């Protein structure tokens, strides 16, 4: 493995290019015609245009990406997150074209990509799962199971993910209505109408466990990330460690994550997501078979460079860390600076960044592909920068994040910076006493 094609854009493309450079690997950037001026194009050793702005014609176009790999002589592909990162067919196509896919085996992506199968697998690995249907369900089965476990329930698309394809039902009438609509939507969005049903946990927290596995059977966890601060199931602030886990629950949750990963002989970086209820019980939700947006939080508290580990694992090397060497040092918080207007229901705000001043100083990391004069295109997600701050404890991490946000200047577009400043001043966030519905209810109250 000498030359890695980075099949992504934005900050994660830059993140992978940086890791390649540190490991002495050459990098190939790919870009759509909307991204000609993008930073990842300039920072990669070379770059190939893969098509028009719309993702399905460029960043989701497998053939264009494989062609770019052939043309540039790349021998590996890092998919980043989003786009083709959890597409088993793409991982298999890389393998079939003699390219190392920097990620798990296609079989693992496929099993975990089918949320109903993933749930069955987690249950058979001895991990707790949310009460619900055993795999895919018809309307009749869904009604029977809902009557048994009690309302409210969630209807989920088997092929869904990233918070998409989910509906809640409070009673039988809503369930019947939503099952029909959800099946149609799932078919349109994912090409698969299969649904399953889960009990809706109230006031739960979203806590996830990072794992790394290599080709030699080594598997470690890198503790948890707390991701309960979400809006419309999109994460806005993440932190590690979680204030909601005591030592005993943390040990049980990380052990469950390892059992699930081991059940698929998981290779490379992955994340196992759990819901934690008010009573300390936790349940498996899904596994993300890729690097996560919020991975830097884990990097700051463990000192492990997850993207370099991904590349080393793909090269066939054993893990660079042993479980007994890993511990959490201090606390880290990530906030997502999105091109959205928090005063207008987070309406997207693309356009030219006319001025940009990035924060710095002790404990501050900014992962961003933005620069003054950069046009944030309307075609892709709204993430402009990730601000990640480390502190010896959570209090210091919060103080640093607030200080860094106050230094952070983005002009020309609206961003979520003012929202994060307000959020970090909220007593519930300062004490860590929040859950997945916190932001929705808070927004409603305003």
């Amino acid at each position: 493995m000498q030359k890695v094609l980075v099949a992504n854009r934005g900050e994660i493309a830059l993140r992978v290019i940086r890791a390649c450079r540190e490991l002495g690997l050459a990098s190939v950037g790919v870009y759509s015609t909307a991204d000609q001026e993008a930073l990842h194009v300039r920072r990669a050793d070379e770059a190939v245009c893969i098509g028009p702005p719309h993702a399905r014609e460029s960043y989701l176009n497998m053939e264009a990406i494989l062609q770019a790999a052939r043309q540039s002589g790349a021998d590996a592909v890092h998919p980043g997150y989003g786009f083709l990162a959890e597409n088993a067919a793409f991982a298999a196509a890389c393998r079939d074209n003699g390219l190392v896919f920097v990620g798990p085996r296609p079989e693992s992506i496929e099993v975990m990509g089918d949320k109903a199968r993933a749930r069955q697998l987690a249950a058979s690995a001895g991990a707790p799962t949310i009460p619900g249907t055993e795999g895919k369900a018809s309307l009749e089965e869904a009604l029977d199971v809902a009557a048994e476990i009690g309302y409210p329930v969630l209807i989920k698309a088997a092929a869904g993910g990233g918070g998409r394809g989910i509906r809640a039902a409070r009673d039988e009438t809503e369930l019947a209505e939503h099952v029909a609509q959800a099946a149609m939507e799932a078919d349109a969005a994912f090409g698969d109408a299969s649904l399953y049903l889960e009990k809706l946990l109230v006031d739960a927290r979203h806590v996830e466990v990072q794992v790394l596995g290599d080709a030699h059977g080594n598997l470690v966890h890198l503790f948890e990330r707390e991701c309960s601060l979400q809006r419309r199931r999109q994460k806005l602030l993440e932190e590690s460690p979680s204030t909601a886990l005591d030592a005993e629950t943390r040990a049980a949750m990380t052990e469950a994550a390892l059992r699930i990963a081991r059940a698929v002989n998981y290779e490379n970086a992955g994340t196992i997501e759990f819901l934690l209820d008010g009573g300390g019980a936790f349940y498996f939700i899904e596994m993300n078979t890729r690097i996560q947006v919020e991975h830097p939080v884990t990097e700051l508290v463990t000192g492990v460079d997850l993207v370099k580990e991904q590349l080393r694992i793909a090269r066939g090397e054993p893990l660079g860390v042993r479980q007994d060497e890993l511990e959490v040092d201090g606390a880290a918080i990530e906030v997502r600076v999105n091109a959205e207007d928090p005063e207008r229901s987070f309406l997207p705000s693309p356009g030219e960044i006319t001025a940009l001043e990035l924060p710095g100083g002790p404990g501050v990391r900014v992962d961003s592909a933005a620069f003054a004069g950069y046009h944030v295109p309307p075609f892709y997600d709204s993430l402009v920068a990730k601000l990640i701050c480390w502190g010896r404890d959570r209090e210091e991490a919060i103080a640093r994040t607030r200080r860094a946000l106050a230094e952070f200047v983005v002009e020309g577009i609206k961003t979520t910076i003012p929202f994060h400043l307000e959020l970090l001043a909220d007593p519930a966030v300062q004490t860590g006493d929040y859950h997945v519905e916190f932001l929705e209810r808070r927004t409603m109250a305003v």
Partner: protein
Amino acid sequence: MSERTIKSPLPGTFYRRANPQAEPYVSEGDEVAPGDVVGLVEIMKTFHEIQSDAAGRIARFLVENSELVDAGQDIIALAGD
């Protein structure tokens, strides 16, 4: 007879249907009232409905389905009475 336009409030990709299988929201010759949904704009992986701000009959579309539009761009010409 005066002619007014419906504008896109956002930049992005303009669609005439809620999803590729759906019927178009409106067609030429249709009468629309204020608040009626006449199209969809996709921006940053989110979808936003375009509503008519006036009553009238749709004279013609000024942009094609899946064409890129700017904020404030005229989308539909309305024939008033």
